[in-house]
């Protein structure tokens, strides 16, 4: 989670302009490529449970390809932002804005764009799906990496320089290891979040075209269209198995392994060794294999690919001319972006249409807030109860994380059936769809907060007979507030994205629509109306940004300041 950045400044404006300009610049290009796309039909997906393992593998593969791309992006973008003062000015706010843009809104653009790149082939579709997953994974990983790079301890930095490590060696010997614990943790969060998007990005309808890729997501989409409830059940089961597998095989060992890169020298509480890691470390053959690979990688990292650093660090004033050149370049880009926006607004946007989306946005905001609020009301007491009991917390924490990874859109049909059956008002009753996915972020953060609550403070409270409401108000709530806010921010971001798939839900030929920004974007996507998509996405990004900057960030900073003695 990006902490520490405070109120908006001029560079945020630059970033907003660039992102919006790019979006609007893409619109005509998309319109142009829309025409010749008739050959790419739906790849056949069949509702046969026996095919599910194959679909699961396809889906998982997409995830991991996107993960590799995300890591490459993280290393290059994060490094550039951390090393170059000029790049930093632009890249960091840009990342912040990108983080706030609802990714699902992009889908129609990217699908059309990539399919246009490889007309008539599935590759384009695959790339589009991978790109969608990438955009859901990369930002927080990059942020974490950038923050680690800027906080490398001074003594380690001096040691690296005194040994005259080249930039390449320094990167692999100091910077990447130092960033590893945070990076692994964020990668895990990214993977969890990405399941949601992989499921949504496999079956896309833009205008009159529907594209499907073989995968669990398209399997579910087909099951929904066919009103085939058992098939939905199968897909859910397959998903559970996949998530359980990659969690056990990949992430548990990775987290345990990353712990050795922690800089603090005091030993942390011992964590039971994951069985896969134990296997790797104990089995002779596997140990040998992993050592060989490790040695190879180490040799690669040790290469002296860049010139050694020979000069002493000197605090030279930045060159004025360079700055001027850089600012001019940024100014030109911003001007071009602004021009794009003006052009777009003047041709495709009317004031009433804008007003409509604002109202839609407020309606969605109400749903998002309700979803987060309900999650908090339900899960804070439960999470505190669990977190204060170490035994329960140890069991519950991984389960909550696991549930957070589960793509909630797979569960939507169940609720949709209920709404149809009981003729409920979709404007209200589609909101629970948003709660399904978002509640776990609140739960596992609250558990973590309560588990980290200092034992001596609990003893003081008991000793002073602080009980009931006073205990909640004075003792536990302020104590878990930083964790709660982190959970709420994540939940909120998730809920905004969910609106796009949750405000329009269908079951066979029945389609339920709740009025809101998500439905607006979803319908614009279905109609292939790029102008409306851009408008919807921009307004939603605006809502997210304003809320984050004016409410969540200050609250988080306040909670951090108050809750620590540092």
């Amino acid at each position: 989670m990006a902490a520490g950045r405070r109120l908006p400044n001029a560079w945020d404006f630059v970033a907003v302009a660039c992102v919006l300009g790019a979006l609007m610049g893409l619109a005509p290009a998309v319109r142009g490529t829309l025409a010749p796309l008739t050959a790419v039909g739906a790849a056949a997906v069949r509702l046969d449970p026996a095919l599910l393992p194959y679909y699961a593998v396809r889906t998982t593969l997409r995830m991991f390809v996107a993960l590799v791309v995300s890591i490459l992006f993280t290393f290059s973008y994060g490094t550039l932002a951390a090393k170059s003062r000029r790049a930093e000015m632009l890249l960091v706010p840009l990342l912040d804005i990108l983080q706030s843009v609802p990714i699902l809104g992009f889908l129609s653009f990217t699908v059309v764009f990539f399919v246009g790149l490889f007309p008539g082939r599935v590759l384009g579709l695959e790339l589009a799906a991978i790109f969608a997953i990438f955009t859901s994974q990369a930002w927080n990983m990059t942020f974490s990496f950038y923050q680690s790079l800027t906080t490398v301890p001074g003594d380690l930095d001096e040691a690296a320089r005194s040994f005259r490590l080249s930039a390449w060696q320094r990167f692999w010997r100091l910077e990447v290891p130092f960033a590893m614990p945070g990076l692994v943790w964020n990668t895990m969060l990214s993977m969890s979040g990405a399941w949601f998007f992989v499921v949504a990005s496999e079956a896309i309808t833009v205008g009159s075209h529907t594209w499907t890729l073989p995968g669990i997501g398209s399997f579910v989409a087909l099951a929904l269209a066919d009103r085939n409830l058992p098939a939905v059940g199968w897909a859910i089961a397959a998903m559970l198995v996949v998530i359980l597998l990659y969690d056990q095989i990949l992430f548990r060992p990775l987290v345990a392994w990353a712990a050795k890169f922690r800089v603090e020298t005091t030993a942390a509480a011992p964590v039971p060794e994951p069985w896969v890691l134990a296997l790797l470390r104990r089995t002779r053959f596997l140990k040998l294999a992993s050592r060989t690979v490790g040695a190879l990688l180490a040799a690669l990292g040790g290469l002296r690919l860049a010139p050694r650093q020979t000069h002493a660090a000197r605090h030279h004033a930045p060159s004025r001319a360079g700055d001027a050149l850089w600012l001019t370049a940024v100014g030109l880009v911003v001007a071009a972006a602004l021009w794009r926006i003006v052009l777009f607004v003047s041709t495709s946007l009317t004031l009433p249409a804008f007003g409509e989306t604002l109202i839609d946005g407020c309606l969605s905001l109400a749903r998002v807030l309700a979803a987060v609020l309900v999650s908090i009301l339900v899960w804070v007491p439960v999470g505190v109860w669990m977190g204060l009991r170490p035994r329960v917390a140890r069991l519950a924490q991984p389960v909550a994380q696991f549930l957070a990874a589960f793509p909630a859109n797979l569960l939507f049909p169940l609720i949709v059936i209920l709404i149809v059956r009981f003729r409920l008002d979709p404007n209200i009753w589609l909101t629970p769809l948003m709660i399904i996915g978002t509640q776990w972020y609140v739960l596992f953060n609250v558990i973590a907060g309560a588990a980290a609550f200092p034992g001596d403070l609990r003893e003081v409270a008991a000793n002073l007979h602080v009980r009931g409401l006073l205990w909640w108000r004075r003792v536990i709530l302020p104590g878990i507030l930083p964790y709660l806010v982190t959970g709420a921010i994540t939940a909120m971001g998730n809920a905004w994205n969910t609106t796009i798939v949750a405000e329009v839900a269908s079951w066979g030929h029945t389609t339920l629509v709740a009025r809101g920004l998500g439905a607006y974007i979803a319908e614009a996507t279905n109609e292939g109306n790029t102008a409306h998509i851009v408008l919807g996405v921009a307004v939603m990004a605006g809502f997210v940004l304003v809320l984050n900057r004016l409410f969540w960030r200050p609250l988080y900073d306040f909670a951090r300041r108050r809750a620590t003695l540092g």
Partner: protein
Amino acid sequence: MDTLIARQPLLQVQRCSQSYRTESATELLVLDQVELTIASGEIVGLLGRSGSGKSTLLRVVAGLLAPSCGEVRWRGSPLVGPAEGIAMVFQSFALFPWLTVRENVDLGLEAQGLPPAERAARAEAAIDLIGLGGYDSAYPKELSGGMRQRVGLARALVVHPDLLLMDEPFSALDVLTAETLRTDLIDLWSEGRLPVKSMLMVTHNIEEAVLMCDRILVFSANPGRIASELRVPFAHPRNRLDKAFRQMVDEIYAVMTRRAQPAARLHAAPAPAFGTALHPVSTNLLAGLIETLSQPPYDGRADLPALAAALQLEADELLPLGEALALLRFAELEEGDIRLTDTGRRFAAADTDARKAMFAAALKAHVPLAATIRQVLEERWNHRASAERFRDELEDHMSPEYAHDTLHTVISWGRYGELYSYDEEADQFSLEEPA
């Protein structure tokens, strides 16, 4: 002071034991049949090493922990849960970071549901009494350690407890701050301005105990029991340099090292390899202490309190060092003195390789656990053994923390003596050099 004991006791701890179950389902005793009575008007000190169970006893008395068996009687009736009239001061201060000084102090009164006017008056009085006037609206993080502990004291005193419990209240503070706080507290106590009847404090600082307490209970560890009880006959204010004061400190050192002897003597008989807990003591410190002892002014023999003062070590830090040297037969402890053996003198004179060899020999001869590990490794065809089995066996005999410390110690000692190596990632002992 003798007349005070005759009164109705405030608190009675009767044959209290505290034990808990480990994963291997063996019962581990932390407190063993502890008896303790506190009368009105006295300051009682619980003196012992860290991990000897004295903090556990304090929590039993506070009602934060229920004893496994035995009974605690508070003002004549059985104590269940945190009792009214008992307040506690913590080593870590335990202030709520999100509450101001006044709100922290006020919390206990708020919990009692007192009317706001009375709360304000009492909080004000406690804040002024303890010297915090003017800091009302500060947050704990704005205060120095000493001021933070004053808040901790004010917060405990504001509820006018009959019994004030203090868990190593000054050990997280620097020397000067701790001394100021001690004298302030004792002055208030002597002048009768503290709204408490008695105090029970846990400490590992011998001088602190003699300076403040009327009675000192010396705790022995594993399992924790009261080894001896001493009465401090001096009137307040006490002078640390007073001859009788020094003598009492010496006496307590002697008491505390005397009970260390059996552990060292155990090895005359074939000692169980897994029965003895080792304190995590670094080999650098051991070598340094041997060198210091071998040189003037000590020339092989030192008075422990004097040595502790000279090296700026607390008794709690020096005693494990002395015991480790005694265990390895590099030194002997007797009546508050430490004396280098011939082996110890030779060690001081030797160079690095010879020292390592001597250390290895001492480990094999006197630390059965190290000897066992070495033997197991020699017998294995691949000269490897998982540390897990040793840890499991240790945990059958001691608490998991002790087992962890002991294994950690035997790993670091064995590495120094080059008896075996240890791979942390694989959690394995081996004879080969680590790759």
